[in-house]
């Protein structure tokens, strides 16, 4: 709701609230928020630096050392980028496999009661189970090669996708299905024109969760089994008592997580253009 433009105020660079001498609370001004953020960041970094300089360097490094390690690993050599590539490839592969499987099973379970009854015990169990306990079993099955990591990622991503898709498929608006029926749509057409678009938001919720768990799976597989990639780096550097270097792959893992989430959000906006639409007209 924009106030009517008041050129006199604008000329003086005042908002109407300020012109009226109404106190805009400090914290609600963007400047206020940033002051706090910067203040906390500085506090954190400074205490990090101080504490790090006074303790055992084998156990904890000051912030400055982390920065130099970053430089060493990321810019001076390509070790880090190789690790990123290695890790990301495996994770994306497992995730990419989980998507079609998860969506298909979720849709089937959501639309066909019988399939739900048959598969439900296993899906619920696997969803409740911390997948990490299966890792030794997976080692027995698949050895310690690269496929274990991909399979762990797959297992950790597929169940959130299945469950969220299934919930969405169960909640398709019956009224919209009536529209399809009235228009003489057959089963396949109803699925394509009504069910799938209705379920899409739920699928994305599942994907959001799954991308997080996929990342965890990737790190899990790397630290416990294959000892490659970013997780492998973490193990390597901590075993050799170089805590500063450990922070670098750690930082990249977090960064990757945030990037993936934002990519997913963008994808969501492209595939569901209607979800951004809002009521721009009054009744």
């Amino acid at each position: 709701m924009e106030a009517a433009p008041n050129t006199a105020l604008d000329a003086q660079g005042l908002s109407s609230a300020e012109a009226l001498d109404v106190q805009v609370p400090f914290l609600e001004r963007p400047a206020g928020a940033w002051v706090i953020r910067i203040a906390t960041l500085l506090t954190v970094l400074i205490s990090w630096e101080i504490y790090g300089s006074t303790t055992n360097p084998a156990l904890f490094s000051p912030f400055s050392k982390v920065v130099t390690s970053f430089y060493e690993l990321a810019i001076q050599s390509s070790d880090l980028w190789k690790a990123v590539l290695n890790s990301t490839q495996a994770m994306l592969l497992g995730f990419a496999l989980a998507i079609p499987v998860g969506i298909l099973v979720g849709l089937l379970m959501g639309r066909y009661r019988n399939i739900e009854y048959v598969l439900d015990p296993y899906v619920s169990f696997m969803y409740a189970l911390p997948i990490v306990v299966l890792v030794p079993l997976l080692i027995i099955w698949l050895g310690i090669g690269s496929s274990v990591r991909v399979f762990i990622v797959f297992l950790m991503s597929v169940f959130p996708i299945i469950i969220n898709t299934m919930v969405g498929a169960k909640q398709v608006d019956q009224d919209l299905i009536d529209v399809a029926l009235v228009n003489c749509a057959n089963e396949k057409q109803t699925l394509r024109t009504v069910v799938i678009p209705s379920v899409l938001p739920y699928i994305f919720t599942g994907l959001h969760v799954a991308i997080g768990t996929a990342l965890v799976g990737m790190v899990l597989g790397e630290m416990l089994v294959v000892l490659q990639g970013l997780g492998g780096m973490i193990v390597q550097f901590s075993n050799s008592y170089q805590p500063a270097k450990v922070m670098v792959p750690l930082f990249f893992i977090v960064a990757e997580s945030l990037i993936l989430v934002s990519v997913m959000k963008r994808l969501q906006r492209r595939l569901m253009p209607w979800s951004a639409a809002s009521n721009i007209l009054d009744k």
Partner: protein
Amino acid sequence: MTTASDSPDNTDDSDAVGSGTARSSRIGRPGAALEVEGVSKHFPKLDFPVLDNISFSVPEGGFTTLIGPSGCGKTTLLRIVGGLTPATRGDIKVGGAPSIGPSRDKTMVFQHFNLFPWRTALANVVYGLELDGVPETERLERAEHFIEMVGLTGFADHYPAELSGGMQQRVGIARALAVEPKLLLMDEPFGALDALTREYLQTELQKICAQANVSVLFVTHSIDEAIFLSDHVIVMGTKPGRITAEFDVDLPRPRWTYDVRTEPQYGELRSYLWSELEKELTGAGGKLIGMSE
């Protein structure tokens, strides 16, 4: 300006108001858009029929309204005619041909619009044509024609979330008309709209029906709406759902060029309709649904 709804029945000799007799002479007339014969519907859990031996017909180009208290089965009846629910007994003919299940001859407009939120207005209107396999350019043309007809030119690319309630329902009407059915079924289409939009759309609907060549079966709660829109009104009772009264509405058409409510006949029709409904609300049926004198 004459309309397609100038049906021969308007020249019937028996007085429409107050006659209240079921017009059995109408059943089986050649050229009727809709014939409902002896339709009954039982639900297993209820010990009385939701619909009990319903028979009536809608002439070609006619506008018939079903009106009655909640629970009288009028929506169920509409869904049966539309093919969404099977009747337990009885026959239905649309355009002279037997009608079981959904078909292209009849389409529906819903109270809560039921537009696909992921499709633009145009994509919604095009839906039936798309399912039919009509080639793209042709179906876009036809859809745009109907969008114009309902007065939404320029809004074709908007999503339902960007449209007001009245506009959304107009999309719903356009969608139903786009496949050019013989019979248009409308389930309290203006029930979810505010009073002003509702009145506006009642007029719009008449204009649209004049242009498009459809017969309409309309369900409503509103007495004024029923009289304003229809050629023929069927009053239904509850428990069991049955026809309790029927009459014609002879008010001259087109009805948007003058204030219908100033016609003396309007007042008579209204009182009559209200008294018929009141019987249902306060009588035996009424006691069962919790209303008393």
